[in-house]
């Protein structure tokens, strides 16, 4: 019984939101905003679960001599942001929280992001080998596109036509086809969820 009732809620709320899409009235607009806020509010409260899970696992690690230092670093980072961020205005420039944000969070994020420059190179070196027809096509296309940056004189003259053609025709076609496939697949998944055929995510006892 407990397993069945949530499925009805999925069905009910799903159908209401579909119908809402086709109604332009003010009540319908309100419902849309309200439903989206539901999702946000559930997310706000769920954050406590996440924080709890994180802290519990880190406090446990404090007992392990090998992990102790790193767990302490994480907890230090977490609590310093909580304490320095107690006031709303601390999110703005001029506070300790903002300094940490600017000089710890931002540079680390940007540096992790920039690792991609190295990884595109190593992935290209490893993956772009003409083992099969498919790999060869992948390799050649990427090669032509990347070669547009090199000043190769007459080769560049010819290459640019290849670049323009690839981008305007097969690249465009591939994007459209994948998008349409994704659309059908996503809608089918939604229907399966709403009809309760796919329900493993909801759990039962």
């Amino acid at each position, binding site marked *: 019984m407990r397993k069945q009732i949530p499925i009805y809620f999925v069905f009910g709320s799903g159908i209401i939101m579909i119908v809402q899409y086709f109604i332009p009235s003010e009540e319908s607009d309100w419902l849309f905003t309200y439903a989206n806020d539901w999702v946000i509010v559930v997310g706000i409260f769920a954050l406590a679960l996440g924080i709890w899970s994180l802290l519990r696992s880190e406090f446990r690690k404090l007992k392990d001599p090998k992990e102790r230092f790193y767990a302490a670093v994480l907890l230090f980072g977490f609590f310093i942001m909580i304490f320095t961020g107690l006031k709303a205005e601390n999110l703005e420039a001029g506070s300790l929280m903002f300094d940490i944000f600017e000089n710890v969070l931002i540079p680390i994020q940007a540096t992790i992001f920039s690792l991609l420059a190295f990884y595109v190179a190593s992935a290209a070196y490893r993956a772009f080998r003409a083992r099969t027809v498919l790999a060869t096509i992948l390799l050649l296309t990427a090669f032509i596109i990347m070669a547009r940056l090199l000043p190769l004189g007459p080769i560049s003259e010819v290459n640019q036509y290849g670049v323009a053609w690839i*981008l305007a025709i097969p690249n465009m076609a591939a994007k459209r086809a994948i998008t349409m496939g994704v659309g059908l697949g996503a809608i089918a998944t939604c229907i399966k969820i709403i009809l309760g055929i796919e329900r493993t995510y909801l759990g039962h006892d």
Partner: protein
Amino acid sequence: MTFWDKLMNIDRRWVYLCIGIVVIIPAIIPFKVPVSTTLEVERIYDFVESCEAGDYIYLGIDYDPSTLAELDPMTYAILNHAFSKDVNVITACLSQFGPAMAELRLTEVAQQYGKESGKDYCFLGYRPYPAITILSMGLDFQVTFPLDYYGVPVDSLEIMQGIRNLQDVKGVISLTAGNVADFWITYGNGRFGFPLALGVTGVMGADYYQYLQSGQIFGLIPGIKGAAEYEVLSGFETTGLRSIPYQTLSHGVILLFIIISNIGYFASKRKKRT
């Protein structure tokens, strides 16, 4: 392990090291590398080059500071090119947070050439709703912008005496990072048929080649590479060209590694067969 096998199994750290080196070197010792130019940028250069003193072009500075890194070099290069040829430039901005920035760029370049606002160029300012703005500029600048950015009545400007709307200018170039580009294609070129060219960010670039193919735009400047090409063509070098050495070298390194890995692959395959 044979030599050919080794070519296929170079430790990834050597690849990283090479990328690191080619990015660090230009940062320490700035230098220039040649840039190969493409047809889509050359066409825009040729268009401005073909203008004679007194001809009109419309330059839409339709981006805001968030994308200035990629689009600023285009603005500088085209303005320099146009002013150096005494072409009359009409500009406006269709991006909400862009007008102040656009005005700074425009006056900066204009001053270098001793150009006067209202006489040699004019800045009309910003209007919301790009589709409507483009449509009405296609009919009459005065209707869309009764006053220019500085509050001067547009019909009193000397530069405006020869022309009335976008159909009277020789061509339109819009530099943009958003869907304004689509509005220019649909409502500008689509409705009035004036020659249109776009300068867009590198990420957007790929999606606009189809309009080049279909003839809806006559030229396209995609991202910093396109900007650098324009700088090379026109001889006005700014930040576009400066960021090219990093790109050329790193792309070169990646291509080199792809070639090495394939040489290794084919050679070892051949060896195994024999």
